[in-house]
């Protein structure tokens, strides 16, 4: 009975949503004076950043990114608090499955390559697709692979926390430096360089590398926390 009621409500909701969105058009230019064209123009002419998504995420809407890394930081801290047990056995770790030697050697081979890929992606965030979040997440998957393959592989919790804190502090401090130099928070105060060079975009590249470190440390810490929960 409840299910039919829910389906009925959802059908009404879906009908209205679909009516709203099917009128929008797909693949058309929808508004004349949106913010989009401004971003696409300024990213080439002023910021000298090839990847527009990067320039939006880090510069035009950089405040969102600051909030977002804070959300991740909060999530990791919250998980640590929520899963806290008084009697904490340091060695206990849930084992997803016992891995064979093929998996182990394969992970050992892949691990450096994955880390390298992640680092490459977040260093080139302003030139090619990807950036801090993507690179950080890829590095975290590398650590995840090792954590699954080796039962006694461990990451120092203090090191993660150092990396996380320092990256966050650098992010805010770079923002505050812009505040002191240029007058507004997160403003670019370094020379913009030449488009499509590695050293271009001023502080954008630096901030995205910081975000990369921070996201990598946070996601690794998150998996580490939840993996160490065994009853």
């Amino acid at each position, binding site marked *: 009975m409840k299910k039919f009621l829910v389906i009925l409500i959802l059908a009404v909701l879906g009908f209205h949503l679909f009516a709203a969105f099917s009128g929008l058009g797909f693949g058309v230019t929808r508004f004349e004076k949106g913010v989009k064209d401004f971003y696409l123009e300024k990213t080439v002419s002023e910021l000298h950043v090839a990847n527009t998504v990067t320039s939006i995420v880090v510069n035009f809407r950089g405040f969102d990114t600051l909030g977002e890394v804070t959300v991740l930081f909060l999530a990791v801290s919250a998980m640590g608090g*929520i899963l806290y047990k008084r009697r904490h056995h340091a060695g206990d770790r849930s084992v997803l499955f016992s891995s064979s030697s093929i998996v182990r050697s394969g992970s050992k081979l892949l691990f450096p390559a994955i880390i390298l890929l992640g680092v490459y992606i977040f260093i080139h965030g302003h030139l090619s697709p990807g950036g801090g979040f993507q690179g950080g997440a890829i590095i975290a998957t590398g650590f995840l692979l090792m954590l699954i393959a080796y039962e006694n592989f461990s990451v120092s919790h203090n090191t993660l926390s150092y990396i996380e804190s320092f990256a966050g502090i650098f992010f*805010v*401090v770079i923002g505050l430096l812009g505040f002191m130099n240029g007058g507004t928070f997160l403003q670019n105060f370094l020379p913009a360089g030449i488009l499509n060079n590695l050293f271009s975009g001023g502080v954008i590249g630096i901030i995205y590398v910081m975000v990369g470190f921070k996201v990598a440390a946070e996601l690794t810490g998150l998996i580490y926390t939840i993996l160490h929960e065994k009853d």
Partner: protein
Amino acid sequence: MVGSPVLLIAIPLLAAFVIPLIGMIWKELVRIIPGLVLAYMLILSATLLYYVSQNGIIVETIAGWQPPWGINLVFSPLTGFLATLMSALGFLVWLFSYRFKRNVDFEPAKKYFIFLMLLIAGAIGIVITGDIFNQFVFIEITGISAYALTAFYTGRNSAEASFKYLMMGALASSFLLVAIAILYSQLGTLNMADIASKMHTMNPTYKIIALIFFITGIGIEAEIFPLNGWAPDAYTEAPGPVGAAFAGIVVKAGVYAIIRMIFTLFDIPSAYDFLIVIGLITLIVAETSALRQEKLKRMLAYSSIGQMGLVIVAFGIGTHEGVFAALFLMLNHAVIKPLLFFSGSSLVFNSKEKQIAEMNGLGKRMPLMAAFFSLGAFAIVGLPPFAGFWSKLSVLSAAANEGLLLIIVLILIVSVIEIVYYFRVVNRIFFQEYSREKSAAPHRPRVNALVAMFVLAIAILVIGFYPDAVTGILHNASKDLLNTDEYINNVLQLGQSLTR
């Protein structure tokens, strides 16, 4: 100029990243630094509020891009008033809970103050930002810290209350994202002032759909009626000071987001009537539920929901007087409800079930706490010499000026219900025999907690006897909210004048 609104967000975030490092050196700093940061935020927002009242609105841009393109922060009399209120209250909550859990090695206790600080920073962010997606991000920051604080005690119920809150919060943020998607697809911008100036070009159907999604999304934080299922559990299971922070800070931010949407962004006149209806339903349902509660914190939670309903009704009246009354109510609620939570949680501190029935005869054992609690109870039901009286009077007069007699009658009836359930508690405290085992020593709050409660009590008395002390600020703030064109111009004009 002394500082800039962006520091209200940047400094707490910086401190949140610094604290884990410094905590490794000296553990006590984990508790001290959030207090210093909150005090700094209080001083900064108060001076900025004074500056704004003299020189006009501050519009702060981020990363040097003018408002329609970059994110901007707006520090106006209204947002400044709310930011000052929140940081003041945040400081008091910190002061109250300073010696809350002595053992810092206890993992959640290490993070309690970080969560508290970011909760307040997120709420201030919701208020002062001028960009809807940025507001979404701050809602998430506030939300996650609130979930973590709700699950602070390791008992079984706290996790459940927290999960319930999280589920509703996650659904709410999905709805918010759909609303943002609709607005962006129609107007091609995310800046609030820009949206408000372009709103008349939007198709009315989309407008209504977007508004419905917005209100469903933010209504969870603002505790409006069908969406407040999380609130009583979260208030009950969270530590006492956290309940005070929810009632005083988080809910205010949610209400602000709703009224900013309706007053500034969407030009739909019937939305005001909708506010009145939904507010009245919230008020009546919450107050009648409060009557039936047996746990103290649950009763306070329902009372808090009811007060928010009254605030929304007052906003729905839509005139200058109505908005003034609503802001006055918000101020009073932010001063009184924390006092009730602080003193109430001290009164039931030693009891297992936190029942109202267990408060019998505590007036003789803990006279100071009982006095604070009854001061708060008298103030919130609106007895004449205290703060709550003036705000209730202004709501009634605003409704009377508009000829909304039904509202007046309903508010009076609900006030009677409120008197009944608060006086039931006061009666138990003072006029019943002490019923717990005699050996149990009464809980003695520490000095810092007493100072926090004294400050709130003095604020209640000051507002009660000299309401003129705050009415000037409130009048400025309500003028600021109603003057939509000025808001749009102030934000977008800066866009034209500021050149890089």
